[in-house]
């Protein structure tokens, strides 16, 4: 395939994660900032540890399989957010993760407390420069 390069446009679509704690690649997974002192895990940038006040962190991978320990089916959301969708809290081998339950009907018949789920990624669209944003959710396992 040949195409002349266009100014400001990357021909090969770059993939960019929705959030910086999503690591793409062959086996997409989440990473946390783990406090080297007490082991508390955070997904966002932290100035110091909320638990023990120390300020050294290391990156740790988070299990991609988990248990749905809470959820809601959101029918009303801010403008631009497609509804209904399932928002959930997933226990990934001891680390709690926030994410939507995807690839299933957003109904109480299909989604239940304690169900097994696993991380899955999907496209969130492409920007003007050809970068494709990749999001994550959890699908029934």
């Amino acid at each position, binding site marked *: 395939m040949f195409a002349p390069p266009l100014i400001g446009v990357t021909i090969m679509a770059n993939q960019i994660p929705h*959030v910086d704690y999503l690591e793409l690649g062959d086996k997409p997974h989440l990473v946390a900032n783990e406090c080297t002192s007490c082991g508390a895990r955070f997904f966002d940038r932290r100035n110091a540890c909320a638990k023990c006040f120390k300020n050294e962190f290391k990156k740790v991978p988070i299990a991609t399989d988990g248990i749905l320990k809470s959820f809601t089916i959101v029918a009303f959301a801010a403008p631009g957010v497609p509804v209904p969708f399932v928002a959930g809290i997933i226990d990934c081998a001891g680390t709690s993760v926030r994410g939507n339950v995807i690839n299933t009907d957003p109904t109480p018949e299909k989604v239940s407390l304690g169900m097994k789920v696993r991380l899955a990624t999907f496209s969130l669209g492409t920007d003007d420069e050809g970068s494709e944003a990749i999001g994550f959710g959890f699908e029934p396992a």
Partner: protein
Amino acid sequence: MASDDIWILGIAMTKFGKHSDKDIVDLGSEAAIAALADAGVTMDDIGILAAGNLMGASASFGQALQKQIGQTGIPVYNVANACATGATALRTAIMAVKAGEVKMGLAVGAEKLAGAGLLGGGGVSKKDGNKFEPRGRFGSVLPTDGRIGTDTMPGTFAQVGMEYGHKYGGVSFELFAKISEKNHAHSVLNPMAAYQKRFTLDEIMNDMMIAYPNTRPMCSANCDGAAAAVVTSGEVLRTLSKEQQRRAIKVSASVLTTDPYQEACQILPDVNTLTRNAAKLAYEQAGVSPSDLDLVELHDCFATAELVHYDNLMLCPEGGAVDFFMSGATWRDGSMPVNVSGGLESKGHPIAATGIANIWEVCHHLRNEAGDRQIKDAKVGLAHVIGLGSACGIHILERSGL
């Protein structure tokens, strides 16, 4: 001189609902003037004003209020603490009295929310052109609300209730709807409530779904309203009239907490630990146990929240909230009446007013002035609010023995 016992000398609330002809200062003034009259004092007696209006937290609501009720030059503390703003204002006045700095304090909370839509949610959308650039503490290239869980209040509190179900079992859509059925049934007796309509269980379950399992009547009602209270020390109270002493309500505990670190608190706000901590401290301060309470006004911002607070306030054994509710205990004729005002689901939730209005409700019963909805011979009550972020205020109140 510092005083250890604190009393509510006067307290008032406006009717909750839609007040389109009144601005926020009108509402605050109405409550403040009524609270001063109820206390039998004037602004000349007040040494500190603590005022809250969450939606206008950057404006000087307290100073604007003074100009309408009495501009005496006393210090004003404008407070903002999410849904615990009213309780925080009250506690600010209490601390000033307790420290011995002033003889009397006035706390006011007012809010105009009628017609406000969904609270929470949204987030920052992309600016300058269509280019993905990581922003904020999560380095996100697009808003996260709705794509990675939900930031909406109904959705957040739905998950709070469902998480309790995952931990202890026994929850269902129907169970949460039944909690709402109780509060709406209670509201019929409360003329101050924004909504006084009894719903059948079917009506509640078939109403518009907001965030499963919370349908519209299971969510707190956005409305306008204000509430205010005058507090003083026991030392001052003993110099006042017999009638003032008889109607005064003892503040046996006044506690404010924030959420301590817990494993999952960054994922789903933990509304449990800070409430439990506040409750423990409040029972200890007051020297009462949950079984001594004659009524409880707790923060039912959603039906799913009421369930977990039965447990957090230790009204039932740990993990036993479902059985406790199903026993009928929390209905007004039960062993532990909860939200006999109708709760936030029907009385309404004008944010900054809520944390004083729930205390007004308890005081009203302790003074034996609650009319049709009077809980007979009520001597001790508890008022609880929680604001996400989080802040929890708990007050334990007792009938005057003077």
